[in-house]
């Protein structure tokens, strides 16, 4: 969708890959397509994906015996229970992203807490933070800031390595940052100790 005052509009469907204008149904075809807005041409392949149908069984259909009603939709038969709060839920309420079934409110909560890996869409990149902190520490070591920046780098690198392992990414860059952090902390600590000893007159 075209931008308005620099703010990107939410995604509404297939767009022109060059001007971002929303494409109408007549432009969503297979072959060479010309954008009606910017007249740019591009190669396209259109699909008509089938809609997945939700199977909802009503309590009346399941019969009185053994049919538990959904906690949110009393007419629907529960298909499972929330693994966090134990509520009976129907297939409409079943929020399952491959790590078990959750009811909508528990799903929102675990997603906000960040404990549900597959549902996490926004997170801090500790590896990048460790690398930036390592560079900053190296640049400001002459100002006796090696120790705090080194400690910060070690902290971020530790979290970054755990995060990268969890995500299945390479930990090499973060490990190098960790090495720099250790060096900065030791060198920074030694520099401060050297100055203190010098001030106290214990250095000859």
């Amino acid at each position, binding site marked *: 969708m075209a931008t308005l005052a620099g703010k990107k509009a939410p995604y509404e469907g297939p767009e022109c890959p060059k001007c971002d204008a929303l494409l109408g149904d007549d432009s969503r075809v297979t072959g060479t397509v010309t954008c009606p807005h910017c007249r740019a041409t591009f*190669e396209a392949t259109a699909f008509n994906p089938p809609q997945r149908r939700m199977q909802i069984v009503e309590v009346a259909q399941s019969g009185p015996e053994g049919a538990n009603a959904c906690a949110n939709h009393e007419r629907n038969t529960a298909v499972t229970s929330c693994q966090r709060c134990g509520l009976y839920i129907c297939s409409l309420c079943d929020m399952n992203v491959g790590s078990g079934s959750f009811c909508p409110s528990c799903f929102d909560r675990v997603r906000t807490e960040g404990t549900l890996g597959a549902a996490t869409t*926004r997170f801090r*990149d500790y590896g990048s933070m460790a690398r930036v902190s390592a560079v900053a520490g190296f640049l400001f070591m002459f100002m006796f800031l090696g120790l705090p920046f080194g400690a910060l780098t070690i902290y971020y690198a530790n979290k970054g390595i755990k995060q990268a392992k969890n995500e*299945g990414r390479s930990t090499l860059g973060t490990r190098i940052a960790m090495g720099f952090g250790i060096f900065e902390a030791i060198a920074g600590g030694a520099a401060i100790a050297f100055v203190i000893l010098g001030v106290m007159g214990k250095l000859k």
Partner: protein
Amino acid sequence: MTPARTRIGSSARAFGRETVYELPDGIEIEATENYEVIRRRVLFEDVLLITYHREMGFWFVILSGLVGAFFLFIGVLIVSAQRTGNAWPYLTPWLVMAFPFLLAAALRAILGVEVISIFGRRSKAQIRFTFRKQRAREVYGRILARVRQAQKALENEIAASAVAEMPAVPEVPMPPAF
């Protein structure tokens, strides 16, 4: 823990970086903005349109060209101020600084960038290839094949569940023959 994924491309933007991965059931995009990673997915089952085009990247060419021209201009300015002697020792450092920017601008203007855009029902993904044009075609073909495969499997699944749901035809006795 995220499912097994393969990195298929990445592109740098003015204020961040986007890395695109292939998952067993879709495409995953990780956009890095400052120190925050924003992750979104386009499922193969949901894909409505896939496009392939080549673009130049107008602003990249203009900005790189301007930076290169700026360094060149300073070099020329210094050389013109130098009235006697050999000009090359003064010009060379500025030429060295200008060269990568001018080369980047020229390469981008000549080669362009291959862009694959995948539009789903709720999200979209873009993969950019600057140098590996052959790989761009391969990735485009592979994504098309995987989308077709996923949507065919979903169609079959829906058809199978529809057959299972259909009530059995009651047996009606035939009328007696006369």
